[in-house]
Each structure stands twice: as structure tokens, then as C-alpha cells.
């Protein structure tokens, strides 16, 4: 049907809009079309034109029930629509679907894409992708042919809304089948506040010994109008917070990230490295976090944090992000 189409999918609404915005830019440069895959009955489908979609392909809601059903639905859409390029969200659902889809369609595949370009003459794609748990970046130049890429939330900016309505195209799709039987599902507890938008984040590591000690950390956060984040073990082993910062968790970009008792595993640093400034308090001078921080304080956090609050108060200082 259209060898000049970018097909976009994410089950996460905000991420889908980010991907559509990026796809729109590339499509405009090439004179291509952008198509989004949505679940039938999704009320957001009609508004995807405003993010850049020309077309919307609804798939049966059953496709959202299990990975194999999703894969079968996406593969059938791709078979009928014949896109030249598929861009998907790098969520857990998306990473699984994209790798399976690339294998099934015999497409080139690259995950964790942060930039891509399509050559207008050859239609060959080039992608820059995060490598080695984000220590490095790879550039892949593909030969012409179908390419599947995934990109994480926040890689591409939220697109400015354009006045445009996407055409809904109902492809003849069967109910997607899958062999997994879903017995139940329970939502994870989410943090109430949006860490991603915080100007100040206090990052809690395993050096904070007891749950009661969070009061001390919270007092610093509230003094400077910040929010608490943590490393993965503090969330997964101790269960103090529902979410963590890191490669597999949230990524923050505050003006200041204050790491308290964080050792600085590379997988964790990925979550905080877009901070404008990183300050770290740790009593172990050899902690890797000090190599990644603007300011390292070698001290007992239980002595340092009260002193830090006291000096800010005594000097009458406030953060620039409060009026």
C-alpha cells in the first residue's frame, strides 16, 4: 500500500504523541505519511492528528490483553499497510513487541534510539542508539528496507499541537490470537507526584539505613521544594518507594540532584545524569558516585544533612525555583 509510511505504536498515550511528533518531522522532510496504531474505542485516537498522525489504524482491544495478541495484531497491520519504517515506544511492552515484530517481519531492529534519519534518496535509515546500559552510543547505518526502532519516554519532545485530523482507516483484522491465558492483573502503586518535572530531587541510596531516617531526607527536600527519588534496591528490596530512578526506572532532569548514600551504580546513574547539577554525600570516598558528581561531600549523611539545612536557613537562602 505505502512504502512511504512511518508506522508508530505505543500503548502509552504520552509516549505515542512524542513518537508521532518525531515521525511527523521526518515524514515532512520526505513527503511521507505517518500512521498510528491504536486500540479500537480509544477516545484519544481522534486527537492523534494533532500530534502529527495522518492515519489511524484501530486494532481490536483484545490486542492489548497479551504480548502475543499484540504482536499478531501489529504484524497483520504491518502486512497490510506495508510501512517503510516502524517506530515503537521503549516500554517493557514495546521492547518485547518490537523485537518479536522485527524477527517476524525480517526487519532490521535497533532499540533505545535517541536520533534517526532517513535518507530521502535511498530511503536508508541511520539511527543513534544507547549502548551498554547507556555508557555509550552506537550509530547504525541500515541498508534499504524495513527498519523497526524503539525510543524511550522523554527522548523526543512533546509535539506542539497542530490543527489536523487523522483519518481512521479500518483494516480487515481478525481477532488476534495468543496462547497466554491472562488470569488477572493488578496495578502497581504509583508515586503521587511527577518526579520527572521536579526542579530538585533528593536521591536516596542504601546508605540511608532506616525507614525512619527518611524524615531527615524529607526535611531537606521540603526545605528546597524538592521530591524524593531512590535507587532500585531501596524500592525493590526495601519497598520504601513504589518507583526508582535508573535505567529500568524513572529518569529525572532537575536543576539539582542531591544523592544521599547512593553508591553510584551505572544503571542508577542513567536515571539522574540529565540533572543540571549533581551533588553527592557519601561516607565512602571511593564510591563511584563521586566520579559522576559536580560536588562530592565525603561525610556521614546523618551529620551532613542537618548541617546543610541549618546553613541554608542561617544564611537566609532559597532555591531559584521558588518565587
Amino acid at each position: 500500500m505505502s512504502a512511504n509510511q512511518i508506522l508508530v505504536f505505543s500503548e502509552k498515550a504520552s509516549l505515542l504523541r512524542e513518537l508521532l511528533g518525531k515521525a511527523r518531522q521526518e515524514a515532512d522532510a520526505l513527503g511521507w505519511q505517518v500512521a498510528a496504531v491504536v486500540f479500537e474505542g480509544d477516545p484519544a485516537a481522534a486527537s492523534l492528528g494533532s500530534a502529527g498522525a495522518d492515519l489511524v489504524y484501530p486494532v481490536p482491544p483484545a490486542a492489548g490483553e497479551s504480548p502475543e495478541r499484540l504482536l499478531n495484531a501489529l504484524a497483520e497491520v504491518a502486512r497490510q499497510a506495508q510501512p517503510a519504517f516502524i517506530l515503537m515506544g521503549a516500554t517493557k511492552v514495546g521492547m518485547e513487541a518490537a523485537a518479536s515484530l522485527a524477527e517476524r517481519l525480517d526487519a532490521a531492529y535497533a532499540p533505545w534510539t535517541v536520533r534517526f534519519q532517513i535518507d530521502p534518496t535511498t530511503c536508508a535509515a541511520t539511527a543513534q542508539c544507547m549502548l551498554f546500559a547507556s555508557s555509550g552510543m552506537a550509530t547504525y547505518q541500515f541498508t534499504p528496507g524495513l527498519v523497526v526502532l524503539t525510543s524511550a519516554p522523554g527522548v523526543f519532545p512533546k509535539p506542539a499541537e497542530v490543527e489536523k485530523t487523522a483519518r481512521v482507516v479500518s483494516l480487515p483484522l481478525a481477532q488476534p490470537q495468543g496462547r497466554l491465558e491472562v488470569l488477572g492483573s493488578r496495578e502497581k502503586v504509583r508515586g503521587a507526584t511527577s518526579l520527572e518535572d521536579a526542579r530538585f530531587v533528593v536521591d536516596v541510596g542504601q546508605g540511608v539505613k532506616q525507614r525512619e531516617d527518611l524524615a531527615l531526607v524529607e526535611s531537606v527536600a521540603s526545605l528546597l521544594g524538592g521530591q524524593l527519588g531512590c535507587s532500585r534496591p531501596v524500592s525493590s528490596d526495601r519497598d520504601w518507594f513504589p518507583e526508582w530512578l535508573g535505567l529500568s526506572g524513572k529518569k529525572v532532569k532537575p536543576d539539582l540532584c542531591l544523592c544521599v548514600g547512593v553508591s553510584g551504580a551505572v544503571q542508577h546513574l542513567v536515571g539522574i545524569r540529565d540533572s543540571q547539577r549533581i551533588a553527592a554525600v557519601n561516607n565512602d570516598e571511593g564510591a563511584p558516585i563521586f566520579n559522576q558528581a559536580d560536588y562530592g561531600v565525603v561525610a556521614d549523611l546523618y551529620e551532613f544533612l542537618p548541617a546543610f539545612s541549618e546553613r541554608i536557613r542561617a544564611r537566609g537562602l532559597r532555591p531559584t525555583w521558588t518565587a
Partner: protein
Amino acid sequence: MKILALIKISLDVAEIKVDPATAQLRLEGVPEKVGNIDKNTIEAAVRLKEAAGGTLTAVCLGPASAKDSFKDVLAMGADDVTLIEDPFGGKGEPGAVVRILEAAVRKLGPFDLLMAGFASDDGYTYQVAPRLAERLGLPLVSYARQLSLEGGKLKADRDLDDAIQTVQVDLPAVVSVAEEAFPPRRTTLMDAIKAKKKPVNLWTAADPLGLSAEELAKNSRLASSSQIGIVVHRKGQVFKGQSAAVLADKLVDALVEDKILKGGA
């Protein structure tokens, strides 16, 4: 019950350094070992083997020199290891790597469960389990946290971004294990002694799988690829050796200088 578990000899990514002048990744001398996620995979597999009886074979595509790297895996309860010497020296494209693993798994004969980490410690691209399931035509239970066998079916909790989903599936199936879901057990001296008697079988892609790197590379869709390191630009100032109050003042000074804190006399 016959269980196969894929494991990888992974680079310790924390030890990958970047040359700040050239932005080149320094991969030489970075320690390599069976990955953490892979030990979680072995733990999950051993628990299922203990519950249901049967055998557990660990399958690894890696350097022949890794032959002695499996002591822990065998001590934990794997019965043997099949090490396939990697014809790409760790630099193979995932599409080709998966074809070798597929051939190895098929060669090892009919199995009930094929298990793998959801991603490798170093590559972290989440693609081997989905691609293999697709190539083998088997259902994939991804991101598994809890696993149990009930009435001939596998029941699992899948750890997704926003939810935990409980599923069940008929065997045979492919399972990918979520991170830190199955902390590896401590092994005893007795386990280690028993492990010494367990075989590590060395295969190559050619023998017995009949594959060649040249043939596999023909499927490549890459015209070229290159890598650089991400250079971190941080000030790296360290304050130490003074009282908490003095250190606090120094950090506060720095934050005032950066215009993060303002006001005051």
C-alpha cells in the same frame, strides 16, 4: 521436565570507561563474567527443577576461554553447560546470535522450558528471548517474577511497567526473567565439589550446528556501525576532611555560585 537456561558472559558495564579526549569506549580489560540477570535465571530454573524434577542445561554463546566461568552456575544446580564458541567474538548482530542459539536449542532436543534473562547485563537490548520465541514458534512469558508449575501449566507473574499481570501457559514455552526477581542462592562447599564433576561441553557454530559466521552475516541489514562513549561533563569537586558545618557551607557556596540558591545576606 527438561529445562534449558540461556546465560551470557557479560561485560561489567560499571567498568566500561570512556576516554574523555577521544570519546572512545575502553572495552579492553573490562571484566567479563556470567551476568547477574543470568544467575537470576539459573536460580529461577533450579527452583522449577527442584519442584518438578528433571534436568537443567545452561546454554552459553561465548568465548572458549569461558569454560571455567560456570562453577557457580553448576554449584547452584545446573546439571551441565553447553558452551558454544562465539564465531563473532561477542560482536555478532542479535539476528545472527539468535540463529546460533536457536540451532543449539534445537540440537539439545525437545524441552519443556527455555529460560533467559529479560535482557543481558551489558547489551541490555531485551531482544534475545522475544526473537527466539518467535523463531521457535513458542509462546513467551516475559518479565517473570513468580513462577510455578500447576497441572502441567506454567503460571507466572509478569512484571510490567504499570502492573503485575498473572498468566498461565501450556508447555513448552519460553520464559524471560525480570531483574532481581530470583536472587541467586548461596552455594556450599559440597555444592562446589559436586559441580566439579559436572560437564561443560564445548561446541562450535560449525560442529555440531553446521553454521558459519560468513553465512550468518549475509542476513545483516547493517551497512555500517560505530560506537562512541558518552563523556560525562561534571565538575568533580570533592569536599572532605572538615566538620559537617564547614562542608555544608562549602556545598552551599557552590550552589550559590551556580545560582541554584539565592538571597541571603
